[in-house]
């Protein structure tokens, strides 16, 4: 069976779901952040495969921008996590209950 668009889309969907599962189950901020990266990458894979199978380069340009924005997002997010750790000495979402009633 020839590998086509749907094969890539299945891989992308499964990877997205893995990332979502990681965000929901893991309680460590850093691992949650890595799972978010996994989800972004799954979207990138879907966009590149659409671009390839529709003979249209715009999808790849989109992925290029997503990678750039993801790099900026990671740097700001990690700086926030470091600032949080300095204040609270924890990187666990369960310990951050200030807004809980």
């Amino acid at each position, binding site marked *: 069976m020839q590998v086509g668009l749907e094969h890539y889309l299945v891989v992308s969907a499964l990877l997205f779901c893995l990332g979502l*599962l990681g965000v929901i189950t893991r309680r460590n901020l850093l691992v949650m952040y890595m799972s978010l990266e996994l989800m972004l990458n799954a979207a990138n894979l879907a966009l*590149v495969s659409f*671009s390839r199978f529709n003979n249209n380069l715009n999808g790849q340009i989109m992925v290029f921008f997503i990678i750039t924005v993801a790099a900026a997002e990671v740097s700001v997010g990690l700086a926030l996590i*470091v600032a949080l750790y300095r204040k609270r000495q924890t990187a666990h979402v369960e310990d951050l209950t200030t807004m809980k009633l």
Partner: protein
Amino acid sequence: MALPDILFYVFAALTLLCGVLVIANPFSRNPVTSAMFLVLTIISMAGLFVLLHAFFLAAVQVLVYAGAVMVLFLFVIMLLDLKEEERRKIKKFSLIGGLVSVGAIVIIFLKVLVAAKPEANASAPTLEGETAALGKLLFTQYLLPFEVVSVLLLVAMLGVILLSKKDLK
């Protein structure tokens, strides 16, 4: 089966396997292990990009993600002392909730995929994601977003410097 098809299955299996090991490694709960498997996931995904003839994006993926972003992650993991992570257990409630919601989303995805039948109107792909074509598009049609993104990177840099100053006042 042709060689690209075999390579697709190899890279896809590698990507998914390493993805599983990022979120739930049975041998180690250490975030460093997760980060290392995330690097492997990203590199095998670059292999998938090469199979999709997106050569420039494969290179960018390895350089930016596996290089810059993951080094940043590892720096922060080393900076925060996360020894206690290994003692914590995954809560049963969150695991069940996560599996149920993710299973629902998997079902939705597969139903959409079956309903859309992307194979039906697909022609043989002829697109080559070569760097020259991509660069030409980037500097003509997408010039404004390109400049905006460069400003965004500058803003992110300033933000990070401000956030990581010792006395945030």
